Structures are given as C-alpha cells and as structure tokens.
C-alpha cells in the first residue's frame, strides 16, 4: 500500500547506550500503529502501545522513523533520530605566534559526539571581556588582538560546548608572555662549503607570521647530526639567520633542523622541516669519472646550488 | 507574681465570639470585704496573700452589659507561680582579639527583697536564620535590696567580626520561702554585637592570628553586597579543612582541625568571590614557650653575673611580634634585665650587674610569647659561682737556670675569694701540674715562683684558675702557651 508522506519531519536526539522512546506524535498511546525505520517495518516487539521503544541505542539506530496509523496506513508522524553523546570537556589551547599583535585560541573535543555541537568562547582580561574574532577556517579557532602589552594580569578564556544531549566547558588562564610561541623558521637551506670538508652553511628565514623582527627579535636553536648517529648536537644563536657548522664529519650526510624563540619571553617553536646536506669532499686527482665516481649526494628539500667542483651522480641511477 | 507582692491573674472565656466583653474582678479573704475592679482585659492584678486562701470572683458581661457568667476561684500560694522579673542586659561589649563577649546585666532594674540564690541562663545566638550557638548557666547570689550589676563573658569559637552575635538572658530565683511553683523569667530582649558581615567590605578574619599547634582554627570571609562567595582556601594543604559554612548573606566560615606548624612567614587562608575579588589573612601556628632549660648563672669578675639558658622546644614563632621575650628577674633586689640578643640562639645569655653587698641572688628567667609564658628559677650564692676568665699576659720574670717567676693576669676583682691556679709545666716529657692557692686580688695580676727547673731547657707553661673548694664552680679555660728557655748554668 502506498504510504502518504506529507508529514513534516522532526528531530530527536538519544544518548548512546541508553533506551529511547519515540511517541507517534499526538496519536493516542493505545492506538494501533506501525513503525518503520528507514522504510523498513519494525516488528511489534519494539512497540509499547503506539510508542516505539529502542533499547541501548547505538549509532546504527540513527535514521528516519515513521509511524503509520495501522488501518489506514496513513503517515501520522516522522522523526529523524540522531544518536550521539553529550560533549566531553573540550581541549582548549591559546598561542601567540605573531606577538605582539595578538594570539589565537583553538579547540577540539577529545571524542566525537556524532551530533551537532555549538561552541561559545569568552575571553576576559583585567575583568573586561575581549572580542575573539572567529576564523572563517579552521572553524574551531578565533583570534584576539592585544590591547595591552607587558600586562601581568592573566587572560581567562572559557570555552563552552553545547549539544542536544548536554554541555561542558573548560577554562584556562595564562600570562601574556607564557603563550608566545613562534612558528618554525622557514626556508631552511644547508649547503656544503667548497674546500671545507668539515663545514656546512645553514641559512633560514624568520617565520613569515612573525610581524616585527626588529622590535621583537627571535633567537634560534640549531640541531644537527649525521644520519648514522642518533644524538643531536645543538647550538643556540642569539642573532642572525645563518650558521656555519664547523665540526661536521667529512663525507657524512647530515640532517639539520632549526627552532625559534622570542629573545625575551615565551617558548621555543616546533622544529623546522628537516634538511639534509653532506659536507664538500675532495675530488680524487687521477681517476676518470666512469671508473670510480665518488658518490656525492646532496639533497635538500630547498633550493640547492651545486658548487662547481663537486661531481654529482644522478640520484635515480645511483639507486639501482 | 514577679515580686511576691502583686499577683497578675489572667483568664480565658468560653465564648470568645462576643468581642465587647467586660469583667468585674473581685478578690479578698474569707471574712474581709472584697476588692473589685472592672476591666475590659481578661487580666487583673491583686495583692499576694502568702497565708490562707484568697477568694476570687469574675463576672463576665457582654457588650450590652448583661451578666453572662460568674465564676469563683480559691487561690492559695501553691497555686500561684513565681515568675522572676526579666533581667536587663545593660552592656554587651566585645574583645575581638580574645574573641570574648562580655555581658553586664541587672535584675530588671529592680531589687529583690532579701538575699537569694539565682541561676542565670545566657543564650548566644547568631547566623541568618538565627540559631542558638551557646546556652550557658551561671549561678550567683542576689543580695537583698541592693542594686547589683552582674557580669559574665563568653569566648566564641569564631572571630566576633564574622557575623552579628546576640545575647539573651533569663533567670530563675531559688525562692525557698515561696511555696508556689517557681519558673524561669522571660528571655531578655536580644542584645546585639554587630559583625562585619554588613555587605560593605571584603575581608578575612582573624587578621594575622597566632594559634597553638593542635588547636582548631576558624577562618571567616565577609564580602560585599553584589559579590558571590566562591571558596576559602588554606595554604597548609595537609590540614583537615571543613567545607565552608554560611553564617549570613555575606559571611562564611571554615574550620581547620588540629592545626599543625605553620611556615616561618605564616600560613595563609584566602577567600575568592565573584566577580574576581580576593582577600586573605595569615596565621602563625606554633607553641607557647617551653620551660627555660639548663639555667645557669655565674660571674667571672664579681662585676657582672651572666645567666644562660636554653629555650627548649622551638616555638616556631619568630619576629618581634611573635618571638619569645625573656626577662631575667632577681627577686631579692627586685631588679630585672630584658634579653635583647639574637633571635633563636643555641644559648640565650643575659648580664646582670653584681649588687653591692649582695651575695645571694634569686633569679627567675621568664619567657613569654603570644601563646603563653613559662619560667625557671635559680637561687645562687655568687661566691659559689665564680668562673674565672682565661688567664692572659703570661710573662716570665726573675729568670734563672733553675728558677723563674711566672706572672699572669685575671680580669675582675676577685678579692672576695681564694683562687687555686694550676700551672702546667711541659718540657717535652709528661707535663707536670703545679697547683697553687692565691688570694683573689683587685689588680688582676698573679704570679707564682717555680723552681727545680733544668738549666738551658725549653719549657711551655699554661695556667688555669678556679675558686678553691668549697667554692669551686668551674675551671677557667687554659691560658695561651708561654714558651720559655731557662738560662744556662753558670
């Protein structure tokens, strides 16, 4: 029989693992009805009069439930059942990677709720509320401009997450200086230095997100090691964006990374992308190229200028 | 009756519907003409008749003055109850630092005709809604015909500033002569001792208190109108803290059981209220002074007596306001000296001037701090307490191959005593000790001749002295070594 379906659809939420009862709209409890789930008939064991009772629902119970008056197969009620969970305490993190302009706060839920959640964030400083400008994307992020600098008063950020099944919130408070963490240095390049078998020249640039290097200079932390050794060597550089490694093992390929930190406050950035380089090696005097080509591979994920004296083998041919 | 003279009678009427009732109240003895009075009230007064029966007649008239009932009663003293006058609280004062409320009251401004025993019940109330926090009984004598002001004080378990306290009092007179029933008086009107929880300030109490280890502490927070209480914290995290108890709209209190020692700068209790306000107080938890130990007094020069002692168990209380202040009393002369040396030395020392013609000294060292006091005493005869100073300026005079005179100095006028000095003679082998007795002198100088020395021999001399028995007390320290080589034999 053709079912009439001009009824508008409702939405009902149910908590994962719980029992849920769906009423057939305004139909009397004692009336005889038929229920379908996603157009599949449900047997009478689920019915309690005209009510539909689902035990220990799980995600698979989500779907469209329709109730028809038994004799006339007339659609009396339709509901979209969404099974989910109340939100757990959200994880909130604030960070300033463009000090002193401002900082952003980003958040996520430790586990999905499977149903729509709405987030509300409030930022207080010096007992005044400050606007947190929502980013278009990513959605779970917003941006706060510093109205004051060098303030000892803490920022208090409260994030509240709400969905149909519950609500949760978290509050963090922090000091202006504590959340300053630049982005990693960019365009890290490492090159051998001709005629210097134990040296490597490493250059990099300020993270493009750091707004005022003059007034707010960064210091850098370089770590390097030959691929064959596990422990890093470190050097801290309080100025400049280049460094010459002078104690490299001759002929060994090195992996190099750089991190950055404001000169006065905050924490170190994450490590930059790793780059590889091998120090310059001496060209054997009387050998011909075919017989014993010394293999020099210098690969660098960045722009790399081959010094004139170094003989390079094409890395693909060298692989087989 | 309140005064054993007048009796207040009151009655009820069956038909209470007709409001315009009036009564004719008559009383009298059996063969005397009654005394009557008309009244709209259902109460009247008559004279107390302590002996025999009083006959009472009450005629009830309705609003149109028609007699509607007539009742007679026989009253004997036993049927009358004695209700003392309600006492009047004349003065309620507070001593915040001692947390005591002091009540002064009298017997309702009246006098009792003769001496009698009285029992007073005093009720202390606080909180909102109000509740009784203490109900104390106090017995006293009320002298007859004498205006008597009685007083009593109560120590609160919480700082009085925390909330408004009220006091009420009633009394019970032990009237042996009255055979009727005796009851408590009415409670007096509430006497009020306002607290600081008026919603006008945010503060914690007590402020900078000193408390004894093991006692229970109380901290309360009062806050402003429009603020909402969040929490009271206590920095001694090992302490047993009660949940906060609300005292009124703007006051809450917490209790700390069995407080343990605080840090040197004092533990802190703080109070957080919304929106974003914050206050606190510091408390110092320590001990009262221990009994001063190893009290010992001596003189080295009959000019000054030096007493020293040990403090015993540390009090854990420091700074001028809290440390133990010591005073050395001498009861015979009545003089005293205050210790003002370093805080917490291993040994405390005080110098007391020797007084002319006083040999016996009865010393008491008295220590006190905000938690209490303690003392130790010592009776000495300074002749028996001579501890000479270290002999100094050893010199050799009258040098010869086998005989010398060794001289030295001892400071102080030791005239009053006989000294014994031990001269240690060391020439490389086993040292030889020479014990000599000398009269104490004023001019500090002493000497002894030593013979039977070997010519042209290196000697090292040392000296120490003390009072001779039975006055011996302590040897002085050994002097510095005096090196000397005897002359060559001729």
């Amino acid at each position, binding site marked *: 029989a053709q079912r009439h379906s001009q009824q508008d659809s409702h939405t009902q939420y149910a908590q994962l693992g719980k029992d849920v009862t769906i009423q057939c709209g305004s139909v009397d409890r004692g009336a005889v009805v038929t229920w379908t789930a996603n157009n599949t008939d449900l047997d009478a064991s689920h019915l309690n009069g005209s009510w539909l009772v689902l035990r220990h629902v799980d995600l698979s119970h989500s779907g469209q439930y329709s109730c028809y008056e038994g004799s006339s197969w007339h659609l009396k009620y339709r509901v979209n059942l969404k099974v989910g969970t109340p939100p757990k305490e959200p994880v909130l993190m604030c960070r300033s990677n463009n000090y*002193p302009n401002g900082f952003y706060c980003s958040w996520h839920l430790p586990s999905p709720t499977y149903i729509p959640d709405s987030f509300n964030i409030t930022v207080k400083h*010096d*007992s005044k509320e400050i606007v947190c400008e929502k980013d278009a994307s990513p959605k779970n992020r917003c941006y706060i401009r510093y*109205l*004051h*600098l*060098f*303030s*000892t*008063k*803490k920022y208090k950020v409260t994030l509240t997450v709400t969905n149909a099944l519950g609500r949760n919130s978290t509050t963090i*408070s922090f000091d202006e*200086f504590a959340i300053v963490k630049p982005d990693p240095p960019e365009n890290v390049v490492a090159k051998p230095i001709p005629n210097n078998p134990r040296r490597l020249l490493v250059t990099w640039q300020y993270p493009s997100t750091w707004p005022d290097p*003059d*007034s*707010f*200079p960064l*210091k850098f932390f370089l770590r390097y090691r030959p691929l064959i050794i596990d422990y890093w060597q470190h050097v*801290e550089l*309080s*100025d*400049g964006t280049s460094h010459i490694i002078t104690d490299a093992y001759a002929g060994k390929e090195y992996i190099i990374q750089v991190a950055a930190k404001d*000169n*006065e*406050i905050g924490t170190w950035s994450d490590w930059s992308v790793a780059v590889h380089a091998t120090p310059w090696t001496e060209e054997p005097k009387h050998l011909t190229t075919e017989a014993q080509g010394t293999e020099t591979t210098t690969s660098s994920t960045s722009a790399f200028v081959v010094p004139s004296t170094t003989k390079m083998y094409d890395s693909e041919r060298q692989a087989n | 009756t309140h005064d054993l003279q007048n009796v207040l009678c009151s009655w009820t009427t069956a038909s209470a519907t007709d409001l315009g009732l009036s009564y004719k109240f008559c009383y009298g003895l059996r063969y005397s003409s009654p005394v009557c009075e008309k009244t709209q009230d259902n109460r009247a007064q008559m004279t107390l008749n302590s002996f025999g029966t009083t006959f009472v007649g009450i005629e009830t008239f309705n609003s149109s003055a028609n007699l509607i009932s007539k009742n007679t009663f026989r009253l004997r003293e036993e049927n009358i109850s004695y209700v003392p006058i309600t006492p009047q609280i004349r003065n309620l004062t507070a001593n915040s630092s001692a947390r005591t409320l002091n009540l002064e009251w009298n017997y309702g401004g009246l006098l009792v005709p003769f001496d009698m025993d009285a029992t007073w019940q005093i009720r202390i109330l606080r909180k909102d809604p109000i509740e009784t926090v203490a109900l104390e009984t106090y017995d006293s004598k009320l002298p007859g015909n004498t205006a008597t002001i009685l007083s009593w004080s109560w120590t609160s378990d919480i700082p009085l500033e925390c909330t408004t306290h009220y006091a009420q009092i009633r009394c019970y007179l032990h009237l042996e002569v009255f055979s009727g029933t005796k009851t408590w008086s009415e409670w007096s009107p509430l006497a009020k001792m306002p607290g600081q929880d008026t919603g006008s300030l945010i503060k*914690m109490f007590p*402020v*900078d208190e000193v408390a004894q280890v093991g006692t229970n502490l109380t901290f309360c927070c009062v806050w402003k109108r429009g603020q909402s209480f969040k929490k009271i*914290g206590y*920095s*001694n995290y090992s302490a047993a803290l009660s949940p906060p108890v609300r005292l009124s709209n703007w006051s809450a209190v917490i209790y700390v059981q069995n407080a343990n020692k*605080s*840090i*040197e*700068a*004092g*533990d*802190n209790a*703080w109070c*957080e209220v919304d929106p*974003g*306000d*914050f*206050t*606190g*107080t*510091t408390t110092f938890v320590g001990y009262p002074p221990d009994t001063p130990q190893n009290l010992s007094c001596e003189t080295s020069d009959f000019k000054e007596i030096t007493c020293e002692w040990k403090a015993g168990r540390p009090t854990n209380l*420091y*700074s*001028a*306001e*809290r*440390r133990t202040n010591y005073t050395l009393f001498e009861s015979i002369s009545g003089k005293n000296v205050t210790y003002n040396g370093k*805080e*917490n030395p291993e040994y405390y020392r005080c110098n007391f001037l020797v007084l002319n013609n006083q040999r016996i000294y009865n010393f008491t060292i008295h220590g006190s701090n905000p938690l209490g006091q303690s003392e130790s005493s010592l009776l000495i005869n300074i002749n028996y307490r001579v501890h000479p100073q270290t002999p100094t300026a050893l010199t050799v005079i009258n040098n010869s191959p086998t005989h010398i005179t060794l001289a030295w100095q001892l400071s102080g006028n030791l005239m009053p005593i006989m000294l014994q000095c031990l001269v240690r003679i060391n020439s490389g082998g086993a040292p030889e000790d020479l014990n000599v007795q000398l009269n104490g002198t004023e001019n500090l100088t002493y000497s002894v001749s030593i013979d039977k020395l070997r010519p042209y021999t290196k000697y090292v001399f040392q000296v120490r002295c003390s009072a001779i028995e039975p006055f011996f007390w302590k040897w002085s320290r050994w002097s510095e070594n005096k090196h000397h080589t005897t002359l060559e034999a001729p």
Partner: protein
Amino acid sequence: MAAARRSPGSSPHHTDLCCRTVLLLRKMRADVSRLLEAYVEKQGLDKNFSLDLVDGVPTASTEQWSEASDAERLGDNLKAYWAFQTLLNEILEEQRSSLTPNDLDFHESIQSVLLQVSALAYQLEELMVMLEHSVPAKELEGIRGARERGLFEKKLRGMKVLQELAHWSVRSVRDLRQLSKPVQTGAIPHVSCCLALKK
C-alpha cells in the same frame, strides 16, 4: 605622541651604556624570576593568586606601546624603577621584621635585586642625560597605607611587585631596542643597543 626628535649619530658610549643596561636587565630578570618563585613558596602563597586588585605598584602594561617617544619610554622606565626601589625596600623590611626574620639568605637575594634596580635606575638616568632628554622629577612617594595592611596583603603586594618587576624588565629591553630603531623619518638611530648578545 611627541614627535621623536633625535640628534644624529650614535656614540660608542651610548651603545656601551645601552648594552650594559640590557645585560643588567636580563640578569635582573633571571634573578627576579628566581626570587619570585622563592618568595611565593616562603610566603605560603600560590602562584595563581589573582593580584589584579593589588594597587600601588607600577604596571608594565601599556596600550600604545609602539607609538611612545624615546623620552616617554625612558621616563616611564626610570619612574618605575625608582618606585621599585622604594617598594623593594619595603618588602625587605617586612621580611626582616615580621615575616621571615631568620631567613638571611632570602633577605640577601632581595637585597641583590634591590641593588640591581638601583643600578638600573642610575644607568637609565645617565642614558636620558646623554640623549638630552629631561629627567623626570623623582616623586618620593611615602609608603601608602603600609600600616593598616594585614600581613597577607603585604605578602600579596610583594608578589605583585616582583611580578611587575619581571614584566618591566622585558618591557625595558623592548624599549631600549626601540631607541635603536630608525623612526620613519629615517634619522640614524640615536643608540644602537647591542640587544642580540651572545648567550
């Protein structure tokens, strides 16, 4: 904001003084951070206490920081460190007389920071004279309300002083760096502070 009038040329003496001041600031900041930690512990406080309502302490917080003139920067710094001298003396007296009378090492560390603040004030004053800025008048502010304050309020105020001092030391380095920045008019920086010093 007053136009940043700078006379050309940056003498080595200016630079040396500026360098020494920055070094002192960094040393002081490290000492103040350690002292603050010790202070919080010895006073039984909690580092998360909200001190927003504690007043009477020069706050490093500022709004139009980048637009300030050199004279304003140096003047604000100098006045702040003069005030910190008074405040640190107060703290030292409170600790000696009534809070930690026996903790001599602690008093020494306060004294050490106090000496550094005094040296800093002296060097800033010298720098202002050198750069021909008028030195602000020294307001001898008495100790306001010290008597009525309970010990807890005194403890909190001490914590606030050290917190603000730590933030001022950061601001001062930034301020000195601004002195060495060419303003839009392209004038030669008056002082080139050796801010990027080898660690």
